[in-house]
């Protein structure tokens, strides 16, 4: 530990929900995408799951909305150090989509890609078991474009760059394939509790 002279920091209440190195962003929701926010309407949006699956499938907006609704209420953590507590997202559990396409037994990973071409990789185990969603509502309202609307991937137990905005699809693979930030020095998995920020962590 390298103490900084004269640095006391803010008065702090111990918050067991705050991963190491994170701070509580309160009401703020910073936007951190490297790309231009696309003009993507629900009519342009679609979501596809293919790769190592039995039945590749594409859902349009209406078809995706026919699936059983599922909500996430909890915390989110961005690698740039902010966390946001008690947020509410609405959408559909990723399990529901995966149940339709049926990944092969050999499947281990997925690459999530956006309508903008952004990509990020995830172990399949992080996308199943009620831990990931396709989300289109935030706090009961349509998800704002700069936060990934009309729909984004939501994997709240990993750093938020894994929750690809403007989600277009998942390609299911039997190996790990680094996505955009992962090729730019970020960690392959991104677990905030283990501070997996950069590739050397």
């Amino acid at each position, binding site marked *: 530990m390298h103490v900084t002279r004269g640095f006391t*920091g803010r008065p702090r209440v111990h918050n067991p929900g705050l991963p190491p190195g994170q701070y509580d962003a309160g009401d703020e929701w910073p936007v951190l995408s490297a790309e231009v926010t696309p003009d993507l309407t629900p009519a342009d949006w679609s979501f596809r799951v293919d790769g190592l699956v039995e039945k590749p499938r594409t859902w349009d907006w209406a078809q995706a909305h026919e699936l059983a609704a599922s909500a996430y209420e909890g915390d989110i953590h961005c690698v740039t150090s902010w966390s946001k507590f008690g947020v509410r997202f609405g959408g559909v559990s990723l399990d529901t989509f995966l149940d339709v396409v049926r990944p092969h037994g050999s499947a281990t990973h997925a690459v999530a890609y956006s309508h903008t071409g952004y990509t990020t990789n995830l172990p399949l185990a992080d996308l199943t078991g009620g831990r990931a969603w396709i989300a289109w509502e935030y706090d009961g309202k349509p998800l704002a474009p700069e936060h990934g609307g009309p729909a984004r991937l939501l994997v709240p137990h990993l750093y938020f760059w894994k929750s690809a905005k403007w989600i277009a699809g998942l390609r299911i693979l039997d190996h790990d394939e680094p996505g955009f930030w992962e090729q730019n020095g970020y960690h392959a998995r991104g677990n905030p509790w283990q501070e997996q920020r950069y590739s050397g962590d």
Partner: protein
Amino acid sequence: MTEIFPRPAFTPTTRFAVPGRIAVSGRAAALWQTATLTEIRRETPLAATFRFSVPAWAGHLPGQHLMLRLTADDGYVAQRHYSIASAPDDSGHIELTLDHVEGGEVSGWFHGVAKPGDEVEVRGPLSGFFAWPGDRPALLIGAGSGVVPLMSMVRHHRARDLRVPLRLLVSARSPQELIYARELGAETTPVFTRSAPEGVPVGRVAAAHVAPLLAEQPPGGWEAYVCGSNAFAEHASRLLLEAGQPVDRIRIERFG
């Protein structure tokens, strides 16, 4: 539900796919190093430049940022990202320029407590995405402290006497709040949003500022770098798109 497959392979509707510009060393990025403050230079009433000696600094490219952490004596840690302001050739030294954010935990320490001799910890450089190796013509648009990584590019351009075209469009509230004012030269167009010198209009960065820059198309076209608050980044990237800049040649660094 009807099955709708096979479908043609996915092609993104807009081509982001802006590739990273350099490979980032995972080792350098993972390692915390001690940085010793050697000098503080006031830039504006709200911003100051902090110069550090970091003897084992692996080097960086203009546009890259680092992560900085401060530790309180009970072990409490605050870490924030800061763009590197200095050009790469400043061996063993780096400079950061920080705005004094009201109530800010880290910028508050820098502006209120820090003095030469103090030590902080840094890791980096991070992210090869916003980096500019000095190869392609660069069109830089920044607001407030968003000019920091862009200034590293301008300084690099000068230090290496590069011939590749470089233009900087920078927005500040007033001439007094324009960071690096005394260093900006012919490559720069300042835009003032609250008060401006006699005869200079007051207003936001607008299509009229962007159009002449895009009218002048260097060979291979511009690589655009936009940096500032999210609101500014949204505004400036829209202007660029509307003026015809390809979406996959716009790189954005948002300070939050």
